[in-house]
């Protein structure tokens, strides 16, 4: 009699355990899967503002994506295309202008702390004048999308095939700080390749190979 009770208790226990395990598995990341990785960046740069509100095209800054292996990170010069003039948040600059108007003086350039870092990297002072014998320094951005070194991803090929940036990078234009959107696992890549070959990309006929060496060479 109590044997049977024991058995039932046992079964319930096992069932409960299994369900726990399964739910745990769903949260569990494969070792190299950094999905959702969103590191602190040296400059508090907002893609939401630039790509989202201001609607700057991705390839305006990451121009290399069309012609090279890597989307690349824009050189500081590229930022200067705008930030030679925009040195601080809009409202702050407005205030300064009005203030200068009132006081009838030339408005002085206000530099926001974040953009200061940008000018530093080009060895420019507050008035955007080159510092005496200062050398430009790269901005040490932190990589978000790390592929293992035995996997080669070529941006040019994918851009040429008409794959949108969001397909892999997610809605960057809505991200304050960029985080890894896709698992970037091999299965994820391969499935996309299969589907694209089957259904095409945005209505375009493509041949996305699933040969190993396409990525591993």
């Amino acid at each position: 009699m109590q044997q049977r009770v024991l058995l039932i208790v046992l079964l319930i226990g096992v069932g409960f355990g299994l369900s726990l395990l399964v739910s745990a598995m769903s949260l569990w990341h494969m070792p190299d899967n950094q999905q959702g990785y969103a590191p602190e960046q040296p400059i508090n740069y907002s893609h939401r503002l630039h790509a989202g509100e201001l609607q700057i095209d991705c390839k305006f800054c990451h121009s290399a994506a069309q012609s090279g292996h890597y989307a690349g990170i824009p050189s500081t010069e590229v930022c200067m295309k705008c930030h030679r003039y925009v040195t601080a948040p809009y409202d702050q600059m407005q205030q300064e202008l009005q203030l200068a108007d009132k006081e009838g003086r030339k408005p002085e350039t206000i530099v926001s702390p974040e953009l200061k870092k940008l000018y530093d990297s080009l060895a420019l002072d507050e008035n955007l004048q080159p510092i005496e014998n200062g050398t430009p320094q790269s901005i040490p951005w932190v990589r978000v999308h790390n592929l293992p070194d035995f996997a080669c991803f070529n941006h040019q090929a994918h851009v040429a095939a008409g794959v949108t940036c969001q397909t892999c990078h997610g809605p960057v234009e809505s991200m304050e700080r960029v985080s890894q959107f896709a698992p970037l696992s091999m299965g994820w890549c391969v499935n996309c390749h299969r589907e694209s070959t089957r259904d095409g990309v945005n209505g375009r006929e493509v041949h996305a190979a699933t040969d190993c060496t396409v990525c591993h060479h």
Partner: protein
Amino acid sequence: MNAMNQNSDDHRSLGTEPRGLRRLSNGYFVSTEEAPALSRREFLEAAGFSLSLAAMSGCGRAPVESALPFPIQPVGAIPGRLQYYASTCAGCPAACGLLIGTRDGRPLKMEGLPEHPLSQGGLCAVGQALPIGLYDSQRLIGLLRAGKKAEWAQVDEEILQGLRQIKDQEQQVVIVTSTITSPTIQASIDSFLDQFQNAKHVVLDAVSSSAILDAHEQTHAVRVLPHYRFDRAEVVVSFGADFLGTWISPVEFTADWSARRVPREQSPEMSYHVQLESRMSLTGSNADRRIAIHPSNQGPLVARLADKLAAAAGRQLDEPLAPRIAESDENLVSELAERLWNARGKSLVLCDSQEVGVQTQINFINDLLGNYEHTLDIERPSLQRQGNDREVQQLVEDIRAKQVGALIVAEVDLLYDLAGHESLSAEVGEIPLTISFSHRVDEFAAIAKFVCPDHHTLESWSDAEPISGLISLIQPTIRPLSNTRAIVESLAVWSGQPQAAYEVVKDHWEKKIFPRRRSTGSSQFLDFWEQALRDGFVEVSSEAPTIGRFETSVLEPVAQERMSENFSLVLYNKVSMLDSRHSHNPWLQELPDPVTKVTWDNYVSISPRDAAELGIQDGDVVKVSAGKNGSRIELPALIQPGQHDGVLAVALAYGCKGTDRFAKIGPQWIEARPSVSENGLVGVNAAVFVSFHGGTQRYTRAGFSLAKTSRHRELAATQEYNSLELPPEVAPHGAERRKIVQHTTLAAFTKDAEAGAVEEHFSTETQLWPEDHPKPDHTWGMVIDLNKCTGCSACVIACQSENNIPVVGYDEVRRQREMHWIRIDRYYDGEDEDLNVAHQPMMCQHCGNAPCETVCPVLATVHSSEGLNEQVYNRCVGTRYCANNCPYKVRRFNWFKYPYDDTLQNLVLNPEVTVRSRGVMEKCSMCFQRIEAGKIEARSQGLPIVDGAIQTACQQSCPASAIVFGDMNDPQSEIHLALENPRRYRVLEELNVRPAVSYLRVVRNRDEESQHG
């Protein structure tokens, strides 16, 4: 592949890569300080372990990588994109055209410049190996003063002071260089020396051709080296000149020579090449007819040939030049004479002799044959060998006589090459001012007062004029990695008017070169300059030297040398090791010699009969001594088929100072052996036997004795068995010879274009299973013309540099674990007189029915939809089953964690190719990364792939252009034609593994229709 137009600023800016940063495959700079910058290999291993780790932790985070963009992006520099710059190779004075493939400001891949009139797109192994010299972490990073670190300002001060004193005391100032092909450097040397009353520039070639120049001075009244035109030569008779391997301008000669080695079905014609030599040279191994002669017999044979041709030409000499010679030789000579006479004006007779007398007779022969102005050009002569041995001899005497006040040495190691002169170093040490421009502390730099290291050629501005009238530019592709200074800059400083190398070169071109321009083209110098930069070279007018009519009076009869019973020694250069300046290059050290297949050592080659008599085995250490109390060296012996009896051959450029750095190269484990020999260096310096005689340096001398020692050093050869004949004791009856390399004779070929094919007892049509693997897009394949291939091994290094192949060291090679993806099989075939040598490049054959794929349990090697056999390193678990099952044995295994811990050296790695981890299999991928790049480029332009747009590394730099790669699906492609060539066959076709690589049968220009085998 376009040579990009870059103005100087761009070149500067190309070097803005921050120091101490290296680039990962993913195209970002990774600071080696902060990120524990994993190399690809390390990463693989980490991945292997992290799986198990993560199983416990459940959250593995890769190390933080920082991505550093350019603050200011150079014009046209796209991250991670390969860009090519036209330049000139400075590996040797041959000055071949160069295309430097750079990625993100890093020169990575040396390739031949297709438009270059001399090298015609080819590049030799030495040229291919330049980059590893650039990223050599043991190169001098700064200048030395009496062996201590010093600063430029201070050193310049002291040098100027020293020079002033010498000027006052009217002492002699001498600059010693190897042949300088650069007009700019030459000019700056001259202008530097002008400020002294008593100054001279001595040209010392490690292996000089002084005799040829001297001979022409006598016979044509002008000291020039002819420009040999093999492309015009139908009959080539070479007395020991290794023109396909090391002689003067091998790449150019190979290209021209091989162009005449393609008999077609319609027009079965090809050049006839006879080689008479005492050792087995690469050239000899490719000759239609090779005759082994004793060095002492060379003079008489040449003289006899001269006599016969003189007779034929009706040019009477008062007395015959030649002594009586043997009957057999007599026949030989008359046969040659006839062949040559029939090919008047289309023939070429060469000789590597350093005896002026012999060379004058060679000139006589060529003159008789009317070859001058056809196959020998002395109106636009070659400037590739300028060595003047008389002056060198004079210099040595001056040094001995303490008449040299300042000795400045560039591009050559004076004391190494003149090692034959005892106590010279001591006397040089007493010279008040000694300056070396060397990259590293060589023999001379070791005792020089000042070492002012020159830039690496990839860092510096310069130019070259290999053939008078053909001038090419050397442009930098990276900012100098260390505190070095170009020679011209140093000289400029010491002549009192400092100027940047770029300015010096540009000025010289504006003043001297621009005026010589051809009438065509813009009259603006800048256009001219830009054009030159873009093309890499310009052809300008050259003032022809005033050539006197041929002077027969200088001809002297040759005395019959009596054959001495002791040995004659022949000193030569290995194809892989042109001179001592390359001795620190690990790629070249590990490149198997094309003939002996030995790496990492020099050795004494002995003829099989002599070896048998003296009871010497391969690897026995023997003592070679010059006479009773002459100098002696000890080296392992190597039995060399085809070498004449009584001849010893030893390679120069070994045993160089500083090669002890290689003692610990390769994996270190309990049974590992060092890559250096007892003297702690790689090989032994044989230059001690080089001596002056009759005004030239002699590399061939008689009167040597050979003694066997008790010691043994196994030579690290990549081939253990050297013949297509099976060992007699185990050879099955009727199948004593394997038809791996098929060959035939021209006579047979003329009759039947398919002569020499293996009679088929099999059908490749029958299939066990239906062919259900269509390859609609592309089917990549390769065809290698064995008749063009000389075995020069340029492809081996090209592949090594393209595909990140590790250097594994002496011990691993000795254990048959070399890693080269492409090897060149060399087979000896037959006995003494009719000894044939076959060279066969062998790499993964990308079989359609690949045996390796079937047996891999984890799908690490599978077939691509484009007919390639893929090896997936990160999937491989290393069972080695595939390698066992490969009939061609072309798979290479990472037995250890091969060395990649040199951060600077790692800059040479190609980010397109994975660095393989320990324990994985690898093999030729047919440069998949290049195929992929080509496809992507074509696709993004929406165009089909042009045939020839995609080239494999080996194909690109093959001097003989023997390799054809392409899409076999494309009926217009070059490969498609090659596949229909009647000479085409596939190795081991009977196995029906369906290789994608085919070969074209060897055809030797012989009259007899069948040669044995």
